[in-house]
């Protein structure tokens, strides 16, 4: 359960939780590894047998630990200058990723993973090709939950924070269809080139609309915000969201905010949620070695109910999704 801190509260409004299958180490086969824009890729993995069963129950916001240590480097001419030094590094530890989509296809489970080339591991991942076999540890952690009584869900995210949000969008639109939850997505990035979506992101208006294909396919409207104004709203995504809230004044009890992205952005979202008393779940990121609660490296400072003291919870096992009120930002 993601909201141990709000225990009494959660008992009242306990809703749908996702991600119940037990974890393990599985092999997946790469079915495609497609480039999106300048530095984003969408990796599609196929699980069969026990892996298909385990990942069929993968909930939005959960994550996996991928072993990329065996992946080759791209040819020298395809290594960006800024990663030339990083490319020399050997990979030892697994890397954590969430999935953007998980689909059961017959006796297989197909999962999509979105990544941005930022270091030695993601650089190597670009050389994964169809047919390659990859070791995946998962499903790990606690994902997002959908409390009862919610009618409006706001997805507020920055940069690669979009990854679990796309999966959550699908669950809200399809699995929770009968609850008829209205979903609005707010996507932020530094500039148009840092928006990890397909299509012409430079032609996006400042209005709410079906501008991001990845959300539009679930009939979810979205707004884009860039720090430099090169696409959509000019400014941080949290300002964009705040303006929208002020104009639209949604019912607080029926609303929930889901957020993923840089820690500073999450802190701001948590503040907005707290001021308005809107429920808010945030997905955090930490450096982690194991991802299974053993190494204790991914500590998240959390408040203790009725005390000024704080405790460290583990991002991998207690999170990565936390109730925003619990986290010390």
């Amino acid at each position: 359960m993601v909201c141990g801190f709000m225990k009494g509260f959660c008992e009242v409004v306990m809703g749908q939780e996702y991600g119940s299958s037990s974890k393990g180490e599985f092999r997946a086969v790469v079915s495609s590894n497609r480039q999106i824009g300048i530095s984003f890729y969408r990796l599609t993995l196929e699980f069969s047998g026990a892996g298909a069963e385990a990942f069929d129950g993968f909930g939005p916001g959960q994550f996996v630990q991928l072993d990329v240590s065996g992946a080759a480097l791209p040819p020298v001419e395809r290594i960006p200058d800024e990663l030339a030094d990083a490319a020399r590094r050997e990979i030892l530890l697994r890397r954590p990723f969430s999935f953007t989509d998980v689909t059961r296809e017959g006796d297989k489970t197909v999962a999509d993973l979105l990544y941005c080339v930022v270091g030695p591991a993601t650089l190597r991942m670009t050389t994964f090709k169809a047919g390659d076999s990859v070791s995946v540890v998962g499903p790990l952690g606690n994902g997002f939950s959908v409390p009862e009584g919610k009618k409006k869900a706001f997805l507020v995210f920055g940069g690669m924070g979009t990854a679990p949000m796309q999966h959550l969008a699908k669950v809200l639109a399809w699995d929770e269809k009968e609850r008829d939850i209205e979903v609005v997505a707010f996507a932020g990035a530094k500039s148009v080139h840092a928006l990890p979506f397909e299509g012409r992101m430079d032609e996006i208006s400042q209005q709410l609309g079906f501008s991001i294909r990845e959300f539009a396919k679930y009939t979810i409207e979205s707004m884009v915000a860039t720090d430099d104004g090169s696409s959509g709203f000019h400014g941080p995504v949290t300002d964009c969201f705040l303006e929208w809230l002020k104009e639209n004044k949604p019912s607080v009890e029926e609303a929930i905010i889901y957020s993923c992205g840089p820690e500073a952005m999450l802190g701001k979202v948590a503040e907005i949620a707290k001021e308005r008393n809107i429920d808010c779940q945030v997905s955090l990121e930490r450096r982690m070695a194991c991802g299974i609660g053993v190494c204790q490296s991914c500590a998240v400072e959390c408040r203790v109910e009725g005390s000024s003291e704080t405790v460290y919870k583990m991002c991998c096992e207690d999170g990565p999704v936390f109730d925003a009120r619990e986290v010390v930002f």
Partner: protein
Amino acid sequence: MNEGIDISVEFGGLRLGNPVFTASGTSGYADELGEFMDMDRLGGFITKSITAKPRKGNATPRIVETDAGMLNAIGLANIGVERFVEEKLPILGKMKAAVFVNVAGETIEEYLTVVERLANEERIAGFELNISCPNVEKGGITFGTDPELVKEISSAVKNACGAKMLMVKLTPSVTDISVIARAAVEAGADALSLINTFTAMVIDIKTQRPVLANRTGGLSGPAIKPIAVYLVNKVYKEVAKERGIPILGMGGIRTASDAVEFIIAGASAVAVGTASFIEPGCAARIIEGIRKYCVEHNISNIKELVGSVSQ
């Protein structure tokens, strides 16, 4: 297929099904790795460091990856001995592996609090003494770097641990590890485990700050393996062999070949550490690999291999 091959070992009076342990701090309190392997297949299990009082641990970042290794500075985060007894001992009691509790503290008194609390627990085989901690009473000097302090703490703990086995875990961050090993053995240590991590640092050149919140951390992983093999061999030759003290060898082990190398260097048993982060069921695979090695090399008793490296 080699399931029936006997790779049991004697380790300081204990009979172990095989010579493979999971190392402290890399396998949790009890059964955390149980979803990835059958814990009963392990020869031994060592808990993460337990202290007298619960400890929150350090701020983050607590780890950073390096070439063929990683640095950690967790800060001995743990639930404290009382909660350990209540919540974890019952799980450990069901395990077939020989269970060692790793004990840490900032004063000798703190170590003794943990050991005295557990000395009469049937469910544990012994203690592993983490002496890579700063001694707050002696100005923060690391216990394990001063032979006098090692003697003092080892004999105090030995007196408190009754019939339980005492294994002292040596830090490699010393001039001569044999001096420290000798001090521990003379004070009553029944076994030695080595090596702990190397104190190390990674600096972010953009911010010009150390990456770890604690500034420094312990280097582990394949990067340290050849040094660990050397130090195990050194301690075996200079201290352990003549006194009949078994060594638990560790440092960068991730394959059966690595494990066998440590045994040939002088270890009676080995521990898998960082590799469990990457492959949580790694220890079980290594056990199978050792069996296969024994079949292929016609070894009927692992004992024949211990310290067999040519002189």
